[in-house]
């Protein structure tokens, strides 16, 4: 019973369950999978990636502004004026809460 025992056991059962689901769905006329909507997916994922890339290199304030600006167009109702106000407000709030109040270990801003 080495380190591989448990994962192999689970993986085998999982593969079996997967096969059963596959065969069941081939035999029956199941409902079609709902089509994904790309707009929210693209902007939201991009915002997370932008945050991941900028938090260490540039710090919390730039990362916050970048993430909010990139995320906002995910909604069809977004407006630039609101987004900019939100980005600035959130940057100030995040800096106050996470760096000053909770003294989390992250840079405020660095270039």
């Amino acid at each position: 019973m080495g380190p591989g025992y448990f994962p192999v056991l689970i993986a085998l059962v999982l593969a079996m369950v997967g096969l059963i689901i596959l065969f069941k769905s081939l035999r029956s006329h199941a409902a079609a999978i709902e089509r994904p909507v790309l707009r929210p997916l693209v902007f939201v994922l991009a915002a997370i990636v932008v945050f991941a890339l900028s938090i260490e290199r540039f710090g919390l304030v730039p990362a916050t502004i970048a993430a909010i600006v990139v995320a906002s167009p995910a909604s069809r109702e977004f407006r630039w004026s609101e987004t900019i106000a939100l980005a600035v407000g959130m940057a100030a709030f995040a800096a106050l809460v996470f760096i000053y109040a909770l003294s989390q270990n992250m840079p405020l801003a660095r270039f």
Partner: protein
Amino acid sequence: MESMSALAGGFSAAFGIYNLLFCLLGCLLGTLIGVLPGIGPLATIAMLLPITFAMDPLTSLIMLAGIYYGAQYGGSTTAILLNLPGETSSVVTCLDGYEMAKRGRAGAALAIAALSSFFAGCVATLFIALLAPSLAAFSMQVRSPEYVVLIALGLVASVVLSRGSPLKAVAMALLGLLFGTLGTDVTSGETRFVENILPLYDGLSFVALALGLFGLAELLSNLEHPEARGTLVGRITRLWPSLDDFRQAWKAVLRGTGLGSVMGLLPGSGAAVASFTSYVVEKRFAHDPSRFGYGAVEGVAGPEAANNAAAQTSFIPLLMLGIPGTATMALMMGALMMQGIAPGSAIVTTNPTLFWGLIASMWIGNLMLLVINLPMIGLWVKMLSVPYRILFPSILLFSCIGVYSLNSSSFDVWMLAVFAAAGYALRKLDCDAAPLLIAFILGPLLEEHLRRALVISRGSPMIFIERPIALGLIICVVALIGLIILPSFRAKREEAFHE
């Protein structure tokens, strides 16, 4: 009466100024996110987990628990006033609560909802206090073989009570177990599935997993649909319900409290299932079931009592046995483990202040919620005017900061993106992610105890049937599995989720 003095000790701990403050904070936050649709207690707790890391374990649990039951209160407010259930557990409150509001009795509905919740909260606190000693005695008997079977029971229950196809739920649970094995193997010190990716040596970040699969996947599907906006009915004129309301409601409250307290104990259920069940029961018991759906007081009182009682008693399986019944409880377990406290080793005996302090804080929190909610309803409803296009970037941002700050690791933020996409795909494929999260938390424990049990028995699986408690639990597992396979139960289950 030993537990009563222990409860008193819990009260003195919970009345500490810090604990009171964070209890209030948790209740306020919980009410807020309960009111807002599109963000639930699960995502909020996941976002706040990194912050609680620096707090005292009791204080952090008090705050997180406050968020959980506070959300039950907040959810019913919008359900009654706007026909918008803030949380799944208040979906049934819409049925009769909104009807009452349409008839100009919004105030009475809100007061009945708050008072039944408060009553249920008080009874559930007592219920836990009375139950704790015998459960503690039981949990002393739990050794590795029993623990293996208990975890299996928890996993099977999470499959039974998940939405959609049971087969897919099984696959989700297995996937969760597999994700849990990633990283360094505790027994041998060897690494698994990590290649040369250093941040994976400690395993996947469970905050990233929970926030991605639940919080952000929810956010993504919210963005697909145009914003749901309820219409506010009239002004709230009279808050106090009439004597007639009380006469109609009190039995429903009692039944709902009893039902909720018991259902919260069962692994896999929780507040939402309890409130649904209570509504069905009330309809059955009513002299005139046709009133239901047209503003029946019992239809508000019963489910509201049930969801609050269940929210509280669902802490029992977690704290006593270390088996989280719902995805939210799995997060609470994560919070405890981050603090280095292993639930399941009978916290009641090893850390009584933590256990009783939390229970006492729930009662205090319920009292606070009563005070916060009734006079401040207008304020909470105003919160709803914040549009989702402002709300979602903020939720997204706090998720990123939360995940990053836990380990100061931008790799974890990348994982958040991966899990958000995965969670979105799972939603499209009709797979409920709750069994995955529960299995992810329980997986490493299951493996450890399974291997330990088999070492004790020198590889013989007979150890699981030789021990009476383990055998009894195995029978429960088999019975549950039998239930899923049974066609008549499957039909019932689908019907229940349909309602």
